[in-house]
């Protein structure tokens, strides 16, 4: 019999694995977007410094660069692989799908990373050590190389949401997967917002400038950068929304927490007001203010955005063929990929999944709860916390149900057939659905679950007893 190559499941009961990925991604986006935007800002300032002979601009580059060494090149450069690590443990087949389709894109990005890391040290430490023209050239190369890293990763991020072109499913081809409307819309939007972040974080450094005239000049540049990029980003966000698949719109309309949209709009308006304020008076640009603005972007802008991006992909996690619970949910003839759903429909999870203890492959009253837990880990825990805390706790979706049969009917009727919006099709065998239902009911109503198990055990005993005389009769014969 064929196996379904699902990996073991990591389950973090405190916050859930999904949030661990989300936290890592949010921090990384702030650090990496800021650094890419800053690299382009540095190139611009270096050109200005050379053309206008304004060496104090280089001093700002040096100071902002030193700040970024810790902010972006320690935290950002480690949380980058950190996203790989966290997705590896939270969604191994999801990250694997991206790696196997885009390994050469990532390898190409790595070449630019190396250039970027060497470049940032040169841009910072060669101020005043090389002639301005050479410094300008280094800064321009650094800025462009930095932006290429964004170009590359954006195609991969877009593929996570939806392959670039529909034809990818039938014909395959790396370019068809990489390029599409969503790629360019997301690239344009992120490019704009990355400058917003660069302007906000740059304010932390600019606030320390002691020369009032120079501080005014820098704060104005940052303010204009921030104002233009925020407004442009907001406009491009509308384009991005239009490139999302229909399923994403359904989730956005129905499932996202109600505070997300107001939070993002409030942050955007707040940041705009902040930039206008620092444009009018550079004295209002102070370290704590810029730090608070950075923190508000992180908490009320990027966190909802990253969580929303994760949510609106549902029920898929990558390329609209890997379900969030790691099962390959559709055929992709262009890549010779076969859906695993038919195999699961025929044999179920317990018989086909690699990482199931042998003791749990057959459901009995004795192991029913454990089997249910195993199935919940496999089929639910990527998106639903199995405890009271973390991402979308599972028990909340069953309204305190006390009846195992009701839950089982839902699992068999709506979930196994793929009739629930935003949810993967989870083709549970009847005995698997029952075990999972017992586990779900047990989370909030253990007495009801135990009663069901006892009832099943009693039935099994009765069956055994009924079967015994017949067996004996056969032996006598």
């Amino acid at each position, binding site marked *: 019999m064929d*196996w379904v*190559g699902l990996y*073991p*499941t*990591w389950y*973090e*009961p405190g916050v859930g694995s999904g949030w*661990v990925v989300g936290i*890592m991604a949010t921090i990384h986006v702030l650090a990496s977007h800021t650094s890419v935007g800053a690299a382009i800002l540095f190139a611009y300032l270096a050109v200005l410094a050379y053309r206008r002979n304004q060496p104090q601009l280089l001093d700002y580059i040096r100071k902002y660069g030193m700040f970024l060494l*810790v902010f972006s090149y*320690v935290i950002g450069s*480690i949380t980058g*692989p950190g996203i790989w*690590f*966290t997705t*590896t*443990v*939270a969604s*191994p*087949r999801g990250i694997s799908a991206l*790696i*196997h389709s*885009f*390994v*050469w*894109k990532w*390898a*190409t990005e*790595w070449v*630019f990373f190396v*250039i970027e*890391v060497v*470049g940032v*040290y*040169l841009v910072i430490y*060669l101020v*005043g*050590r*090389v*002639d301005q023209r*050479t410094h300008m*050239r280094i800064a321009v*190369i650094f800025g*462009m*190389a930095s932006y*290429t890293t964004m*170009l590359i990763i954006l195609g991969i991020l877009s593929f996570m949401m939806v392959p670039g072109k529909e034809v990818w499913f039938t014909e*395959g*081809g*790396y370019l*068809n997967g*990489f*390029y*599409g409307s969503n790629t360019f819309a997301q690239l344009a939007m992120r490019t704009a917002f990355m400058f917003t972040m660069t302007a906000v974080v740059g304010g932390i450094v600019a606030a320390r400038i002691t020369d009032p005239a120079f501080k005014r000049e820098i704060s104005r540049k940052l303010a204009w950068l921030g104002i233009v990029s925020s407004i442009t980003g907001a406009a491009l966000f509308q384009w991005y929304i239009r490139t999302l698949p229909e399923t994403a719109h359904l989730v956005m309309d129905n499932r996202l927490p109600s505070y997300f949209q107001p939070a993002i709009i409030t942050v955007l308006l707040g940041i705009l007001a902040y930039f206008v304020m620092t444009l009018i008076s550079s004295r209002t640009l102070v370290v704590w203010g810029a730090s608070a603005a950075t923190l508000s972007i992180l908490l009320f802008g990027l966190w909802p955005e990253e969580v929303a991006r994760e949510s609106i992909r549902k029920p898929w996690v990558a390329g609209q063929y890997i379900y969030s619970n790691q099962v390959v949910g559709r055929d992709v003839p262009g*890549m*010779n990929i076969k859906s695993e759903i038919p195999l699961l429909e025929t044999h179920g999870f317990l018989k086909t999944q*690699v*990482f199931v*203890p042998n003791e*749990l492959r057959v459901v009995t009253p004795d192991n029913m709860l454990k089997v249910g837990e195993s199935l919940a880990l496999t089929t639910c825990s990527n998106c639903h916390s199995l405890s009271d805390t973390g991402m979308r706790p599972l028990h909340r979706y069953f309204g305190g149900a006390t009846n195992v049969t009701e839950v089982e009917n839902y699992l068999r009727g709506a979930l196994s057939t793929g009739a629930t919006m935003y949810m993967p099709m989870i083709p549970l065998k009847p005995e698997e659905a029952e075990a999972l239902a017992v586990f779900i009911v047990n989370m909030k109503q253990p007495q009801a679950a135990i009663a069901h198990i006892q009832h099943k055990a009693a039935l099994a005993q009765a069956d055994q007893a009924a079967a015994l005389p017949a067996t004996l009769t056969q032996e006598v014969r």
Partner: protein
Amino acid sequence: MNSEMLYALRDVAGVPSHPIVFLVLGVLTFALHIAAVQVMLGGTALVLANAFSRNPMRRRLAAAMTTTAKIAVSVAVVLGVAPLLFVQVTYDPFWYTSNVLSAWWVVGFIVLLIAGYMALYFFYSRNHHLDDPQHDTRSGWSLVAALALFLVVGFIMHVLTQQMLSPEKWMSWYAPGGVIEPRGRTLHDYNLWRFGFFIALAAPVTGAWLFAYRRYLSAGQLAEANYLQWVGALASKMLNIGGVIALVLLGGWMATLPANIAGFATSPIVLLSMALLLLTVALPTVLGQRTLHTSLGYAPFALGAVALIAVAALREVLRWTVLKGIHGYDVFTYPVHLDWYSNVLFFSTFALIGGSTLAYFLTIAWKVGQTPMGQIYTPSAAIDRIGTVSMWLVGLWIVQFFVVGFVVWAQ
């Protein structure tokens, strides 16, 4: 865990080039990564050993090694991305399983690495006058913390690599006694000989690095003779003693291989690695004063890098031997869906843009280092040309990204 199950874990999309390409790149990039890791560890250890002395030479070395270690962490992180990428491509069933089984530590790896790096930066920021023995060295605890954390993250990575090789134990780790333990809070398997070998290599690699550092100072007339002599003696000691210790640990590692692949210990790749490590150790003695007065001062580190490539190959061949020989998993049967565009794009970017830009950057850095403080370095026309070419190449790359993208999008 039989081979059928292992093959089922493979990614359904296949790989876009023959697996050998990824294995070779994995070996080369791992060698670069581990070299940076070892300079990072050796450099940090040298700072710890010398930063609290009142001896001006020791303080000068401590200051130089603080900067070296700080940059080495950056380089180690960025170079580590490549082997991490390639191992996921070819050995995904093993890498992903191993990671999930110790997930808590995998996440911890990131947090601890950031903490270690921050601790090193903190020490650096607190000791801007480290080279001046008149100044007290402050916040030594952060240096100890940095080194300890670097060793911990190294150990985590070692465990993840080690766990890959034991599919027969995976189920007992995931569900001991049939009860699933999904929290991933345990580090299940390690081989202290193997871990010790890679850590001990930091001494000879950093010794070879010190020979290069000494030659660099000598060529630019940036240090007095007694300092150069002292650094040379220290480098020799690290290379000789550290090299012997590393070889002993390598022997221990080979002696603890599973019985059915014990013969690997005397395989050509192991013997070649040992020979190259020994040659690296012996080279400065053979070259004598030429390591100080000629560019041969860089030879020990260059040969050391070659030895590390051999060690990286040893590690890869061992992995193949264990997985094929014991578990029946053949990486070379991975289905290939060749994609020419992405292959060509990577290799041309690597060779042309990576080659020219890094040549330009490193030449500039080198030349500036050799220019006395207070003077401005202006590159020659030839170096300028490399810079211009690099700039245009990166620009051209961006143009092709959009041109190809728009064409595909419009079709």
